[in-house]
């Protein structure tokens, strides 16, 4: 006994058509991702062109930012962007590393999960909340406690002392760096933890078997094994800090002059755009702001692309929090 299956050629053709349409639609959506990046590049260049062609290289090298005389240079904002991010990384790196070590090697298993989840949830809090909190809670504390102390001790040092002189404003480059640090700690810690967990247990066990202490296992086995991932994760954090807008805009003070002291107000690229874009009255003003955006894009794109290339070597599934 056998059943004969009759395939209707028209139905088959219909199936083939649907296959082609579905395949085509998914491909188009995927290509849209590429087009998006291309669109961002083109629109930034297009918008920035009047400023670039008017100021030429001076746009990069001048500190002046004067809407009244319609003269714009990006140096102050670029400086602020880099300095706040460096401060943030200096503070966030050791703390994130400590948290990641604690979570993977030290914490008893009943603590691991709650702290890990807490860190991940905190990484989801939007940056405006960090900036808002920085302005209303952190800045007054810094102004009355930390900054006077910094001025007295660090400010008295020869050489590096210039970085820490002046009046305790509460808001400024240093505060922005600290708020950024607090914002990226959960992010970097979560990535580092993910990277640490890719280290095969057998490697760690061999080191323990040879009599290594926990710290020696971390420093000589875990860290070397996960070096690329750590650097990649850190650079993703740096990319975030460089491009962050809201956490900085609240607390940086919006001053375009480069001041030697980290306690003085400054500005970053993103804070300048956020504060001034809707008020840009002349074409050159708006174009200069978009030019700042183009610079920010170049800076963050190189950092993020380098980070992603490093993380490519790792199994993507291990990095669930990136």
């Amino acid at each position, binding site marked *: 006994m056998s059943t004969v299956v009759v395939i209707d050629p028209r139905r088959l053709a219909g199936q083939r058509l649907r*296959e082609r349409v579905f395949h085509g639609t998914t491909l188009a959506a995927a290509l849209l991702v590429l087009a998006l990046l291309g669109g961002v590049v083109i629109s930034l260049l297009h918008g920035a062109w009047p400023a670039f062609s008017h100021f030429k290289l001076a746009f990069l090298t001048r500190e002046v930012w004067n809407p009244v005389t319609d003269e714009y240079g990006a140096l102050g904002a670029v400086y602020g962007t880099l300095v706040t991010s460096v401060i943030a990384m200096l503070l966030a790196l050791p703390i994130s590393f400590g948290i990641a070590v604690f979570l993977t090697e030290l914490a008893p298993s009943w603590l691991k999960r709650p702290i890990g989840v807490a860190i991940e949830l905190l990484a989801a809090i939007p940056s405006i909340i960090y900036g808002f909190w920085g302005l209303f809670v952190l800045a007054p504390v810094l102004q009355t406690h930390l900054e006077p102390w910094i001025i007295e001790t660090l400010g008295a040092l020869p050489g590096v002392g210039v970085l820490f002189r002046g009046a305790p404003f509460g808001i400024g480059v240093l505060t922005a760096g600290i708020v950024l640090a607090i914002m990226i700690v959960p992010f970097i810690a979560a990535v580092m933890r993910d990277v640490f967990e890719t280290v095969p247990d057998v490697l760690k066990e061999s080191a323990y078997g040879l009599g290594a202490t926990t710290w020696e296992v971390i420093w000589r086995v875990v860290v070397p094994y996960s070096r690329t991932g750590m650097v990649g994760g850190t650079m993703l954090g740096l990319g975030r800090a460089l491009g962050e807008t809201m956490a900085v805009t609240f607390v940086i003070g919006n001053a375009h002059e480069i001041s030697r002291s980290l306690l003085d107000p400054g500005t970053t690229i993103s804070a300048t755009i956020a504060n001034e874009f809707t008020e840009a009255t002349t074409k050159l003003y708006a174009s200069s702001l978009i030019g700042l955006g183009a610079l920010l894009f170049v800076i963050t794109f190189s950092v993020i692309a380098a980070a992603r290339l490093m993380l490519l070597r790792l199994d993507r599934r291990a990095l669930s929090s990136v």
Partner: protein
Amino acid sequence: MSRRPVRKVINALALGLSAAATLVGLALLGALLWSLAREGLAHFSLDVLTRMTPAPATGGGGLLNAIYGSAIMTLIGILIGGPIGLLAGTYLAEYGRNARLSSVIRFVNDVLLSAPSIIIGLFVYELVVVPMGNFSAISGAISLAIIAMPVIVRTTEDMLNLVPQGIKDASTAMGAYHWRTIVSIAYPAARSGMLTGLLLAVARISGETAPLLFTALNNQFWSTSLKAPMANLPVVIFQFALSPYDNWQQLAWAGALVITVAILVLSIIARVVVSRLSPARGRK
């Protein structure tokens, strides 16, 4: 003399520092949540959810128009970004799994995932606001869609890759076309993970401020028109917080609490969805 004591001291020191770093980190973040809860709750009342943003230096008022605007723009953002992200993720996982084009797209998507959101705002300003001639809710929604998309592409691809090849092969062996296998076999198997991706994307865009500053702008009044500027929670918080008026600052605290709670709840739901619906994919 043996070096053991020195090594033990270094060990204790390093591990102590690591525990201390964890304490410092958690304490700072605890302080943030604590002040949000205290100040936010102090200025929270039903009015916040039911009344419009007030004029400066008056009493009362709420954030209703801002909450409505945020909800609408997030919804439209996810309605635009969601399907595109799902389809693109499907391509990467199913049709172009090993294609060279896919690794380029994957890389570009990962870069977009971490790109500064203010740049997306500038892009949409040039793309939508300038041609339209004015700030509008729809341009805000489009910038949110662009921010949501990479998140969804990434999770969709990861989740579809987790579907065992065997059951897809079984479907193919039954004579199903690839699209039928994807729609009837792979999607249902990866459903909870894909849903999580969507929820995480919603959580991500509902707090975004920078791209809305010069797309949706803000609106002091109730407006449902997508072609006009629309109030939204993050920009209202920004504006109110930096204002000198007490009532505005107090509403900013309440708004910050609302937004944080909403996002934490969304993220927790996303986690529960993952662990409930697919025990195999439970997170570490």
